[in-house]
């Protein structure tokens, strides 16, 4: 049973995973036994009762109440067990402990933003303490997304104009992948993030110092880090290849051609506007899909990104 679950399921890294996995294994094993039984019956009957001559006479068996009640009641009992078990797991999944640490999550096409109590915002990186319940209060800025951490066995849709929440308690430190599982357009499959589980004191330290580590970097170095950290590179390549948005390479100083605005040359003001209000000018042949970064990036960070783009010739 453990072998089966190790092969089929991702590592279990939250307190909620054990119950889900146990039920998963129970259904798998029960189903497998029944499936093998049915398959043996198919094969055995096909061989044993194969037609021997065109004049074969078959018995008249129209029904058998005892048999029929048996094969109705046993599955009924089995599914009631599965139902109750599944429900109990679901209640645990939806009952948030009172002392849960709260983090605000915003889904945007196509990135995840995590807002912490200190006001710090991380993009596509969720930092959480180990062995402590964490509650995520989530909403979307555009279409429906769904927040899924396979290692924790949790998933919840993230809706516009509405909050939804999910909670978990990580049981070990390390990294786990976060997927978006509600189809949300072109870069849906690139809307990935990472959960980073810290020791509790390590997490406190991270929270206090997050962002200040950037002080020691030159603007270009900082910009290079920011475009990755803020998921710019999900849609904008730095090597000239075409993704969902125009490449950053050779962007600086180039003539931009728009769908419905006059051409401009890419300068500081254009790049700043494109980051804060991306829908203002849409480059020809691209779709207006970028979320605004106002409130996510501060002026110093925008400056750094501009300095970095200047270096990409």
């Amino acid at each position, binding site marked *: 049973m453990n072998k089966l679950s190790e092969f*089929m*399921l*991702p590592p279990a890294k939250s307190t909620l995973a054990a119950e*889900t996995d146990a039920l*998963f294994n129970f*259904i798998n094993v029960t*189903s497998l036994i029944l*499936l093998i039984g*049915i*398959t043996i*019956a*198919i094969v055995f*009957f*096909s061989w044993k*009762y*194969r*037609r021997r001559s*065109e004049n*074969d*006479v*078959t*018995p*008249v*068996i*129209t*029904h*058998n109440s005892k048999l*029929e009640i048996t*094969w*109705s009641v046993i599955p009924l009992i089995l*599914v009631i067990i*599965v*139902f109750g*078990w*599944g*429900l109990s*797991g*679901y209640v645990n*999944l*939806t009952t948030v402990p009172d002392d849960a640490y709260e983090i605000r999550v915003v889904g945007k096409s196509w990135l995840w933003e995590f807002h912490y109590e200190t006001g710090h915002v991380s993009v596509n990186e969720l930092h959480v303490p180990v062995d402590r319940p964490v509650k995520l209060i989530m909403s979307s800025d555009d*279409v*429906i997304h769904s927040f*899924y951490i*396979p290692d924790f*066995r*949790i*998933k*919840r*849709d993230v*809706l*516009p*104009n*509405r909050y939804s929440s999910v909670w978990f308690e990580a049981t070990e430190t390390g990294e786990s992948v976060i997927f978006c599982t509600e*189809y949300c*357009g*072109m870069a*849906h*499959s*690139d809307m990935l993030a990472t959960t980073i589980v810290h020791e509790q004191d390590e997490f406190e330290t991270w929270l206090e110092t997050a962002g200040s580590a950037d002080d020691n970097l030159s603007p270009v170095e900082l910009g290079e880090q920011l475009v990755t950290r803020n998921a710019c590179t999900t849609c904008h390549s730095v090597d000239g290849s075409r993704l969902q948005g125009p490449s950053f390479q050779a962007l600086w100083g180039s003539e931009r051609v728009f769908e419905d605005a006059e051409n401009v040359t890419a300068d500081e003001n254009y790049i700043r506007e494109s980051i804060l209000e991306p829908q203002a000018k849409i480059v020809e042949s691209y*779709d207006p899909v970028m979320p605004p970064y106002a409130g996510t990036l501060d002026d110093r960070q925008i400056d750094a990104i501009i300095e970095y783009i200047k270096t990409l010739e």
Partner: protein
Amino acid sequence: MATEESTANVKRVQVKRFKPEEYPEKHYLNQETGLWAWMTTVDHKKIGLMYLMSVAFFFFIGGMLALLIRTELLTPARTFMDADVYNQVFTLHGAIMIFFFLIPSVPAALGNFILPLQLGAKDVAFPRLNLASFYIYVIGALFTITAIFTGGVDTGWTFYTPYSATTGGSVMMMTLGVFILGFSSILTGLNFIVTIHKLRSPGITWNRLPLNLWGLYATSIIQILATPVLAITLLLLTMERALGIGIFDPALGGDPVLYQHFFWFYSHPAVYIMIVPGFGIISEVISTFSRKVIFGYWAIALSSLAIAFIGFLVWGHHMFTAGQSSLASMVFSFLTFLVGIPTGIKIFNWLATMYRGSIDMKTPMLYAMVFLFLFTIGGFTGIMLGALAVDIHLHDTYYVVAHFHYVMMGGMVMAFLAGLHYWWPKMFGKMYSEFWAKISCGLVFIGFNMTFLPQFIMGAQGMPRRYFNYIDQFQSFHQFSTMGAYVMGIGFFIMAGYLLHSLMKGKRATANPWGSRALEWQTSSPAPLHNFEHTPVIINGPYDYHKPMSEFQLGIATSHNGHHGNEHVSHTESKTEQV
């Protein structure tokens, strides 16, 4: 056997034994020929064949799209197409397979052909309406094809708001196509219900109705009751996009979850529109090729109706993670499990029918066995997904993709193929190569499992569906799955080959090549233009294999058509009147 009182109501009719004409010179295929005659035909058999050609065409298109998807997924990110193209391809694959193949395939194509024959009727109750429904289907298809060529659709076949309200492309044209298509489905359902009620031959009481017709009857009820909800939903969606009326889009004050409720209120019962008629076919095939009375006739008939009924009350199981109340999730989960019970009963009934039968593993029977195996896996994984806590983990992953392919393709398509091979001689009066048919069936079976078994594992490990790009750990599973898809593709090309060969050069079929007791086999192959040269009279059930064939070939020779008043055929009477 009858009391004094009841015999008073029995009007005695004289019946004769009519053996069907072998290798008839005149039949429905060589009468009223020519393009115009076909296009304006009201013959249910020809309309059925026109549907069959259409669904075969769309199955081919949908299948090629599936191969494109699988090829693209050989490597993470771009293999040979871009993300936006990939998103359009999987949307089209889903929409075409569901709306243009699965929904019409059994009821409209096979059902149209076989339903009046199984009733001993000349045609369906409303032949012109039947033709109209075909043209509505064609118009719906034209809209959809236009949508593909004028911008494409990248919303997934579910058209979830608000994404579908904001994305570019031809979403409106596409939804309009599906909207129109719905009317075709409603009209077919209506026609079938009336036909089953009103046009049964003398002697076909409700407990002698072939199980295939019970399946189609249950399906028709769902088609009539559920399809209008889809129409309303799509209309609201169109109004939102075209007129800016806020219904589902939160930016306009709407509620996107409401859309999901509406959509699944139709689309979950639609799953049963696809699978329930398949159950009917399997019952016919297993009884015929086991040459044995069906086990638990009423259990099978009523479980179809039970599935149709409960199927209306489980739509919320698509939304366990979407934000409906916990109470709603609990109720939907429970009802979902209840659907499993009648489904399980059917599986056991079919197995019990094979017990001590005289089993001839011809191609239709082979497909029925493949159905039993694959559909059982589909059912068990459905139980997995119905369990609340587990569904939270598995929802919207490849596990779900694999599950519904096991149900839809492993279940429904295999049942469709069983039915196609079973009734092929009746349709075209030709046999196909058993050898190649079995080779093809084997390749489809192996290819199918190679394609979708790895997807269960991938999904359980967390691979989300509708992903153009994926993390490296899934690549070997994806590649194995793609190889399976190619094997399956080869199987289907072989099938196309031997079926075409059968049409051209196939051996002529006898009236009843399978030795079936069912009514449709008691007339010539291919069927005469008006199905029967006499009004058939039925004194035995369609699965009474213990009785001699002569008791199944009875009919009224005279002009009297047997459809008046309280006529009942008494068993003894007809026997004495046999020639």
